[in-house]
């Protein structure tokens, strides 16, 4: 495994919830990253954010790691969950809530419902 791959693997396995994104959760620098970070922030999910723009090896490496061509990428308990489109669909359908519950990740159910109400 390359150095970047090792670091990615440690980050993914060492945090319950990790978002690889462009920018940071406080200051996303891409609309797609912003949308996923926004959902997690609003739902009060505790997560680690990795800014791929700060490290070219990670920016490419994460795509190879997950066999997924785009960023952002959300991982829960070591498993790749999806990118922006999938997380958006899962948020609106309630599947994201179920996935968090199944994995023992705490989140604000009321906030999740508010997102769904606003997008109904």
């Amino acid at each position, binding site marked *: 495994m390359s150095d970047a791959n090792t670091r990615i693997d440690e980050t993914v396995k060492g945090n319950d919830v990790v978002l690889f994104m462009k920018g940071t959760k406080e200051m996303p620098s891409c609309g797609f990253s912003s949308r996923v970070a926004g959902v997690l922030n609003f739902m009060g999910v505790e997560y680690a954010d990795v800014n791929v723009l700060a490290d070219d090896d990670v920016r490419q490496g994460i795509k190879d790691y997950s066999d997924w*061509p785009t960023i952002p990428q959300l991982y829960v308990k070591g498993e790749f969950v999806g990118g922006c*489109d*999938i997380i958006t669909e899962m948020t609106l359908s309630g599947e994201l809530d179920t996935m968090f519950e199944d994995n023992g990740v705490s989140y604000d159910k009321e906030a999740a419902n508010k997102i769904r109400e606003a997008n109904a």
Partner: protein
Amino acid sequence: MAIDAPKIENLIRAGFPDAQITVQGDDGQHFAAMVVDESFRGKSRVQQQRAVNATLKAEIDSGNLHALALTTKAPE
């Protein structure tokens, strides 16, 4: 090299000959595709979309295809 919606559809079609495929987008960079295929049944969205992305890998890697909003599902 620019890419257009029919070319994207052909590439996806090569991997999913029997799928129902709709590709939209005419600015040469941003596209939206819907792929409905029986082979998706029982698979997660990640697995479904990895399979579709694989048919477009060359175009994604080369940067020809900049953004593709993908929706995948099995037939109702």
